[in-house]
């Protein structure tokens, strides 16, 4: 049977990846029949109405799902389609209480006209009581109107869909995790709605282990824990985890949402010097770890890495040991003191992206997902390529556009070792070698940062302060 999904008309490019991820999570066979970024209405094929309800129950971008009773460009066409699709079902709804409404997207109808339209469906033969609150069944005629139809005086919608209501998405969760009401946030905390969408796309679920190597105030681990996963996180900046005040810590956030039991652990660490145990890929990447430590640890890795635009990206180390010969001996002497702050050196954003992919390939279980955010220019020739890795398959690239730049959520799937293409591994190795020769490694400045400082007055940051483009 076909079902009608009513999306919210926002974060358009995230909508399909979200429900496709939920289909994977629920083990539901989902076929998209019709979908467009310009419309909130999407038609899908699903095995059952139970599957339809399960598919969307934790979706952030789906408002509702309906059994599709008919569609068409005119009311006549809708009536014909409803007869064709559902005549055999009408008997089941003869006596139940029901409600029949019209939902006009981008348009309006007079009350009278609405009643006329509703009455034109009288042939369905529903004889049960009409109940506006908690009816047994709810039928909705959706109208898809052109933009600005009211001021333009457009008389009719472009399209109609008749659906029987089945279920609602998780639209209440973003409110629950709203940053405005969260105890501890920073300027780079991820918006609750997008953090939840990210957690969905990364397949966070009960019994799973999720990790954010740039955890900050914990937006992603919180979203993952909200969906039942056990969350881990780390950050190079211990203060960002610990906060400044007593009640303002990452842990306090978990406490606020009653999720403490799902906080696996947080620690201070630099991703480029990570203490997470992991085996080398393919066993021959020069890192002959044979410590008998088996297995990959995480079902999902979700993060918003530092773009390094405003303050430059840093990792542990000294840039020019010759220039400041005292740093290392001083460190040797002092590092055991409780408030020793280890030196940091600048690092390239592209190198960091490679590190994230490599780390994920080594620590994600088969089919585990990496979802991370990265900025890009809207301008084609400034666009940053989507990073690739032979052990990771790109699952989805979602874009949130702002005026001068965009940020993308890129999602990968860990390919099981046996299915990894050896040719791709070879190529990646070569590319890395040439990259090294060209000096395209850790020390190269962030190309993105350069581009933005020369072209735009306000560089992108992890917190978009300019308004999204609608």
């Amino acid at each position, binding site marked *: 049977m076909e079902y009608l999904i009513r999306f919210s008309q926002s974060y358009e490019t995230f909508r399909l990846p979200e429900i496709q991820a939920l289909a994977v999570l629920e083990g539901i066979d989902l076929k998209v029949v019709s979908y467009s970024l310009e419309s909130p209405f999407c038609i899908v094929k699903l095995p059952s109405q139970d599957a339809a309800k399960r598919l969307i129950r934790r979706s952030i971008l789906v408002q509702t799902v309906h059994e599709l009773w008919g569609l068409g460009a005119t009311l006549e066409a809708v009536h014909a389609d409803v007869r064709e699709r559902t005549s055999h079902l009408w008997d089941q709804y003869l006596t139940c209480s029901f409600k029949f409404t019209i939902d006009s997207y981008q348009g309006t109808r007079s009350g009278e006209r609405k009643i006329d339209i509703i009455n034109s469906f009288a042939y369905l033969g529903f004889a049960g009581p009409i109940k506006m609150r908690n009816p047994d069944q709810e039928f909705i005629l959706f109208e898809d109107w052109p933009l600005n139809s009211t001021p333009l005086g457009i008389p009719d919608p472009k399209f109609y869909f008749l659906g029987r209501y089945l279920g609602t998405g998780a639209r209440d969760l973003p409110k629950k995790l709203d940053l405005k009401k969260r105890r501890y946030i920073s300027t780079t905390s991820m918006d609750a709605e997008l953090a939840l969408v990210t957690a969905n796309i990364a397949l966070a679920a009960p019994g799973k282990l999720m990790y954010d190597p740039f955890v900050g105030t914990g937006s992603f681990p919180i979203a993952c824990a909200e969906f039942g996963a056990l969350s881990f996180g780390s950050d190079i900046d211990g203060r960002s985890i610990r906060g400044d005040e007593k009640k303002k810590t990452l842990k306090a956030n978990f406490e606020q949402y009653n999720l403490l039991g799902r906080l696996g652990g947080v620690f201070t660490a630099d991703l480029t010097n990570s203490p997470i145990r992991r085996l080398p890929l393919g066993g021959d990447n020069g890192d002959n770890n044979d410590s008998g430590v088996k297995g*990959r640890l995480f079902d999902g890795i979700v993060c918003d890495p530092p773009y390094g635009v405003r303050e430059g990206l840093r990792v542990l180390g000294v840039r020019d040991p010759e220039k400041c010969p005292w740093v290392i001996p001083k460190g040797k002497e002092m590092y055991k003191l409780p408030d020793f702050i280890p030196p940091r050196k600048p690092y390239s954003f592209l190198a960091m992206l490679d590190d994230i992919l490599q780390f994920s390939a080594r620590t994600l279980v088969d089919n585990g997902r990496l979802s991370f955010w990265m900025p890009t220019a809207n301008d084609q020739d400034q666009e940053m390529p989507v990073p690739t890795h032979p052990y990771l398959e790109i699952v989805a690239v979602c874009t949130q556009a702002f005026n001068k730049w965009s940020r993308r959520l890129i999602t990968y799937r860990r390919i099981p070792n046996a299915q990894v293409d050896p040719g791709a591994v070879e190529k990646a190795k070569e590319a890395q070698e040439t990259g090294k020769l060209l000096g395209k490694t850790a020390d190269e400045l962030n190309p993105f940062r350069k581009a933005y400082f020369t072209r735009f007055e306000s560089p992108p940051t992890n917190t978009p302060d300019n308004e999204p483009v609608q």
Partner: protein
Amino acid sequence: MKVLTLNFLTCAVKACKTTNNSFPLHPKDAELVHDEIEINRDLLVNVLPRIDWTALRTTSTELGFPTLPEQPPTAEDLQQDEKMLKELHALLLETQMMEGKLVCGHCGHEYAVREGIANFLLPSHLV
């Protein structure tokens, strides 16, 4: 930091990654707390194959817990053996290390744990 996390962490010093005795890190002066959490069998079954059992046995003993069996339980064991399930749950998920140090058995580096947060930042001569 749950005891489970200790099973995921090794010495951050690159030279230590290739040796056996840098994992697990050894808790020193550990202050533990115990928080009751609802048992999640699926979680434990999922986590089991990712645990380094030998390392967990070491950690468990060093933290003063009773010695774990030599062989890890199987997924079926966890389905049937309620006692085993509860013990593992209590150790891995309910017990947290709040203060103390984690010491590398190879290089001797001590990673401080404060307010449940371990610090793995290294000084420049170790990165």
